[in-house]
């Protein structure tokens, strides 16, 4: 087997990704980088799924009544319904943002991102102020984190999810800011796509968490 150390002909590919100019090897195209990024993103979701599954297992393992039946604590159903609706609606606007940038509709893109971030923030406020009762002056909470496994699991699940929503909102605002500077185009918007699928993923997790926390099982009185 021979090894060439000689210079080999190389035309610099200006269509390749701007991040990678080392001029030594044939650089993959932006499309190839995006395929790698996409696969990496989905593997990240697979990893995260195990975190959320662990929390779901914890909920069904620990929330048992005196006879081993599945129970749930009494929560504010209206609050749960409203925040869920808000989050589902936000996914629509996230999708609208992605479609808009793919079609070069810049204004729609930026507005949709802001609406998504606003709805995400509304969800966070709903959970933290309304459901958790972190500010008892405004709304009094129903449960405390220390109320046995009911408090622990409600705050553990909604807290872990809220952390993801929070990071999603920050990501959306970052993408919005970069988008305003003109960093994305209809061909090149992996950043928008990553942000969008992350947001849909966090939304999807809530679709499993909401019934697990609010709907499944008979209610049980939690004394404070």
């Amino acid at each position, binding site marked *: *087997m*021979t*090894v*060439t*150390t*000689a210079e*080999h*002909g190389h035309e610099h590919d200006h269509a390749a990704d*701007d*991040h*990678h*100019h*080392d001029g*030594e*090897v*044939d650089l993959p195209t932006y499309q*190839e980088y995006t*395929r*790698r990024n996409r*696969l*990496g993103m989905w*593997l*990240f979701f*697979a*990893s*995260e*799924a*195990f*975190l959320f599954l*662990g*929390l779901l*297992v*914890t909920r069904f*393992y*620990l929330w*048992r*009544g*005196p006879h081993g039946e599945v129970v749930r604590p009494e929560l504010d159903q209206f609050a749960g319904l409203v925040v869920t609706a808000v989050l589902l609606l936000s996914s629509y606007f996230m999708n609208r943002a992605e479609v808009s940038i793919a079609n070069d509709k810049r204004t729609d893109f930026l507005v949709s991102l802001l609406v998504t971030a606003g709805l995400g923030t509304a969800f966070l406020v709903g959970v933290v102020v309304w459901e958790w009762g972190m500010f008892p002056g405004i709304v009094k909470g129903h449960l405390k*984190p*220390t*109320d*046995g*496994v*009911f*408090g*622990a*699991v409600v*705050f*553990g699940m909604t807290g872990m999810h809220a952390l993801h929503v929070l990071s999603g909102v920050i990501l959306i605002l*970052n993408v919005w*800011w*970069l988008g305003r*500077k003109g*960093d994305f185009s209809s061909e090149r918007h992996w950043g928008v796509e990553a942000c969008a699928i992350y947001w849909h993923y966090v939304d999807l997790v809530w679709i499993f968490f909401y019934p697990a926390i609010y709907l499944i099982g008979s209610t*049980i009185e*939690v*004394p404070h």
Partner: protein
Amino acid sequence: MSLFTLGIARGLVGQVLGMVIGMLLTCAVRILLGWEAWAAEPAWTVGSVCSIIGFLLGVGSLDDWLKWTRGIQTPLVHGPPVDKPAWTRYFSVDYNHKVIGVQYTVWGILLLMVGGTVAMIFRTELARSGLQFLGLDLYNSFIGMHGMIMIFAILLGVGGMGNYLVPLMIGAEDMAFPRLNALGFWFNVPGSILLLLSLFIGGWDAGWTAYPPLSARGPIGYQLFFLGVFAIGLSSIVGSLNLLVTLLRMRPAGMSLFRMPIFCWAVFATSLIQLTATQLIGTSFLMVSVQRAIGMGFFDPRGILGEVSPMVGGGDPVLFQHLFWFYSHPAVYIFVLPGLGIVSELLPVFSRKPLFGYKWIALSSMAIAIVGFIVWGHHMFVSGYNDILRIPFMYATLLVAIPTGVKFFSWLGTIWGGKVHFDTPMLFVLGAISVFLIGGLTGPILATVPTDLPLHDSYFVVGHFHATMFGGFVFPFFAALYYWFPKVTGRMYNEKLGKIHFFIMTPAFWVQTLGQMGVGVMGMRRRIADYDPTLGQGQIENWQMAVTIAGFAIAFGVMLMLWNFFQNAEVGVSAGDNPWRSRSPEWQIPSPIPEHSFPAPLKVVGEPYDYGLADSGYVTTTSPGDD
């Protein structure tokens, strides 16, 4: 050149600053809430979180991403730093996978030495009955520390081999995400520092498994321990994600999955476990952490209804064991699969014969990884969970013996009739097989419920576990170090010293593992600082002494190896490009490997393991224009 041109020095300063800032932040919040300003546990916990971030900011592994958030493009620069000596790149953020692989390996060996030193200390204590120089709490902290540091060291060793070898073996320019790769390594440094620091603020005395309720009530050291594990877990997740994308998307044309070097299959299987299961040890430790910090009672059995129905609303410590072992059992496959891959990789080279049953070995790694997800309950036969669960967990565990057996038969088939060369790497491979056989054969004894019940939590388990770890990781890892040392440094190690290392370490390890099993059968409990000298008809002290001496012999052997490497890395005899006459791609290029490994994309022209077949090659590194 000032010290702070080294990334690691800046990182350590960042870690200290982060710790201080985190503590001040905690005090400030507590004052605002009208509480007493200083409380040790929240201050150390928040401080530790900030210290990890502080380290990463200081070392500079977040720089590029922070710039991206502001829309600044940063080109990926490969190559030694321009205005600094070349060696400094090993102490700073560097995006070349070969540098990162060496960083992983060296940091792993350092931790191996720390963990080994801790083991030597309590092994000396155990040589005689009675307490000589260790207190009970310190002994408990030490055994847990030995366990967790060694797990870190093994994960780093696995990361080192994967990062260094996988891109070379598939002829890729680098890993798929070089920045993520660097971050994956740098997580380990603040993580292991937190783990070591925890010893000085109270330690943690319930063993590396950190079962509640003990860990929920133990000293503050637990919070640092949890965060240290978190950091290493994050490293595992991003590292495995990177390896998976690299393996799936960056192979050259013609290298189908079943034409990869077999080590890549082992890494693939390991990465699948690391990517997913690691989340569960994080979840379980986070739950204990918040239970300690703010009283969320996941594992606190006190119910909410008091007299009426004492169980309702109470937590369950057994849940912790389920979540914990869902990672921590597959974790042992994370440790051993790459090692077994090294065995399969090296045997054909030193037997000059094709690898026997390539596809079966590849699939057996996948089978072990998949079955590994459904066997965690065999750690819990005496935990008090539902008895019915014992049966499926027992059979699932026994099932692991089948793919493992496939590997053994394939290894024998590879050596059979081969022209075997007994160089040091090959000796360690054979040592690995002998030791892993001991570990493997004692596995079904512990997987079977009736035999596990009396042996559970005895030293027999310790013997079995160390045999699997040495056979599955330590011996193959040492084989890999000897084997690829000439490729990394361009120099040959001292063969005679290598052989002395092998012939000291292997018999010593046999004595150690069989001795541990022996004292276990005599009735010695694990994780207990002292034992009854009358056990085993009064023979137990002799056995313990033998195990201790064997332990010191192993340590001596390891020191010999490190001295050998240290001596020859710069001034040893030049090794040439391919001293082992391997067909693998990384041996077809110069040693040490140039900055950009391959001059042109690889071309796959044959099978990877057709040793002995005249005029056949696996890959060519010739660029198309030169044909």
